[in-house]
């Protein structure tokens, strides 16, 4: 029988002060990056036009830019796409007939013989209203997801657990967004989908630990152990499951990242980061917060009792 851990007794919860520091630093880095560089939104969210083309012989970006500028699309962003002779051209909204921009870009490129033969592989146009709607819908979806999770956990376990789980989820979202911002990736619809998956994944992990804690509390072994120790036991008892699951999901994600092609790359990247932070945040954000919150409440109760006794 292969086993990763046999009756592990690591002191996870005891080291939570260091973890708080680490979490704070990482979220701060993420927040600073978000504040300074911001997020680059895909046209799904900003509106605009995207043209993806594949050339027979790869021309330089300058050449493409020259023919686009001549046609009046000087503001467009030109990017190499994938490993081969593909480019993506993005034109921001602005002209009076934005829905015809794709066609005019195609014509401008076709009119320049020095660019060589090319094939138009994809043209996307998103109008300003659609983009704006989507931005709101995205924020709404993330918030609604968190509220749903909070309610479910508060109902099945307790309010502290629910709040701590949502804080953990929030932590994961910030870390993922920070990673997108730091690596200059784009926030697109698939990235949003990945982010929402991570929310589900992170909370999944957290629930496994809570469930174990609840199960242990009624049992013989929990007696005589303080709350931090009980939580630590729960984390240790579910450790091999946590590591195994993270490992399999992680492997799937890595393969998506390697083989999924350019289209799935950003999606897989967010999952990649999210699985790491999601596994971490279960113990060091959710579980740790529940422990400290419980102690805080107990401390207040004790002080209140003392005050009553004195009086």
């Amino acid at each position, binding site marked *: *029988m292969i*086993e990763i851990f046999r*009756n592990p007794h690591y002191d996870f919860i005891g080291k939570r002060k260091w973890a708080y520091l680490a979490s704070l630093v990482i979220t701060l880095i993420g927040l600073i990056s978000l504040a300074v560089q911001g997020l680059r939104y895909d046209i799904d969210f900003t509106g605009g036009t995207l043209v*993806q083309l*594949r050339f027979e012989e790869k021309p330089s970006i300058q050449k493409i830019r020259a023919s686009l500028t001549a046609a009046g699309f000087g503001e467009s962003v030109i990017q190499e796409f994938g490993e081969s002779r593909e480019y993506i051209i993005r034109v921001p909204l602005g002209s009076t007939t934005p*829905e015809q921009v794709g*066609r005019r870009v195609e014509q401008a490129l076709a009119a320049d013989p020095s660019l060589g033969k090319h*094939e138009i*592989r*994809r*043209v*996307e*146009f*998103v*109008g300003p*209203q*659609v983009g704006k709607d989507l931005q709101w819908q995205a924020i709404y*979806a993330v918030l*609604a*997801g968190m509220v*749903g*999770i909070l309610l*479910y*956990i508060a109902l*099945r376990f307790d309010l502290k657990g629910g709040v701590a789980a949502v804080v953990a989820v929030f932590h994961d979202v910030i870390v993922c967004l920070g990673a997108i911002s730091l690596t200059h990736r784009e926030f697109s*619809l*698939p990235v*949003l*989908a990945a982010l*929402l*998956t991570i*929310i*589900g*994944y992170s*909370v*999944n992990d957290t*629930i*496994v630990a809570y*469930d*174990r804690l609840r*199960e242990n509390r009624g049992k013989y072994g929990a007696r005589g152990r303080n709350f931090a120790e009980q939580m630590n036991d729960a984390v240790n*008892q*579910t450790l091999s*499951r946590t590591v*195994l*699951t993270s490992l399999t*999901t992680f*492997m*799937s*994600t890595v*393969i*998506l990242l390697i*083989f*999924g*092609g350019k*289209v*799935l790359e950003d*999606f*897989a990247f967010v*999952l990649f980061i999210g699985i790491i932070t999601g596994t971490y945040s279960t113990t060091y954000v959710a579980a740790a917060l529940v422990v400290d919150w419980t102690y805080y409440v107990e401390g207040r109760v004790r002080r209140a009792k003392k005050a009553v006794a004195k009086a």
Partner: protein
Amino acid sequence: MPKYLGWRVGLVLAVVAVSCWYLYPPRRTINLGLDLQGGIHLVLGVETDKAIAAHVDRAAADIKSALERKGVAVARVAREGNATITAQLASPQSWNDAITVTNDYSTFERRNADQAAGRFQLALSEREQRRLGDDFVRQAVETIRNRVDQFGVAEPTITRQGDDRVLIQLPGIQDPERAKALIGKTALLEFKLVDDRTPVEAALAGQLPDTSEIIYQRRTDKDTKTERRTPYVVHKRALLTGAELTRAEVQADPNSPGNWQVAIEFNPVGTRIFGEVTEQNVGKQLAIILDGNLYSAPNINERIPGGRAVITGKFSIDEARDLAIVLRAGALPAPVAILEERTVGPSLGADSVRQGMIAIVASAAIVFLFMVVYYRLSGFIADVALGLNLLILLACMAAFGATLTLPGIAGIALTIGMAVDTNILIFERIREELRVGKTPRSAIDAGFSRALRTIIDTHVTVLVTAAILYNFGTGPVKGFAVSLFVGLSASLFTAVFFTRLIFDVVYMGRRKLQAISI
């Protein structure tokens, strides 16, 4: 023997059979999304405001002539804003008559009535505006569906989205520009008399009677690609519109070889009006106007009794065919604007399918391998369960007519990773029970029952997120949510029910159970 074994085996076999039935043959049962097979995705906004304004304009003209028939002298009846008509009577004495007339227009509410000044306003009620807008959008969906059907596209999707949007997906379309022109054209065909009393020069200089307007004839020279615009002065009132059409056919243009024209035929009402109009206006020009463009303005030489006419305009065969389609399918009740458009070439779709398949096969393979190495026979059982999970997932997609998109494939890949979590939870639990010294049999029992509560909790929370995703999502995100939702539901069945069944068959049936391969 374990309980209900026969029933449980039966249920699993039934699920497998139904899944296979839905999936056969796979090429035809699974819809590929536009990102996988190429095609065009359009979101159109129906500009209901403009159509409501046009509706109010018509009502204003109606009210004006009704007032005049009643002998009320009118200074002005015109639309103000989008849905309000302002009426100014020539004198306040005919106030009561005017009020009686307007009482017939019950969808309008009278406001700001000022009897002394002989002025009042009629506003279209909010409810009526909403009802009209709703009608317009519904009609637009119908009309677009008609056009697409006549154009001939396999498996188009045309649905209403939200209040005033129409989603159109046309897989495998080769010429997106043509499809867009066909769908987006308002196709309002109007017949108006040319105003022969107002010279064009005077009209361009601004001396235009209230009842007339300038309309241009646009002709693009095929060789030089330059556009020529010829102005015409026509009476504003349309004598006849495309609503009275019954037929529209493509014909060779006898006067200009190589070009095509569209022959139209009116219904009985249209035929009667057309006959009267041509009889009363012999010697004048009748302008044929489509979407504000004048196509031709032939002279009326005599009364035309049969209700037939032709629209010429040096059309190519495709242009003529598309024009005939939009005329037959009818005009859109309101102009539409393109809000979102995504065109994917077929080669990109094929590449995406290839890459997506490689990714999903590879990620499944590594998970399968890992499970067998780590849990041996039990891992193999979990792998069979995973395979069943995939089968059910694909069958559900076929049954719902769901579309498999690229993010959808990613969702499936992810489901594989997460479905295996359920089995890991159970197996780790069984190992734990074995470690504390339980017999294999009771370890299996305890492992499954203890893990079940956790499994249900984790599944429900992720299902909640998937449901939220589905509700909020558009196209691609929705596809992802569907595969996540179905995959997780299937994993409850396969990882818990099915795995337990196999464990029961393999282990529990034996009289003496020494060890489990886990």
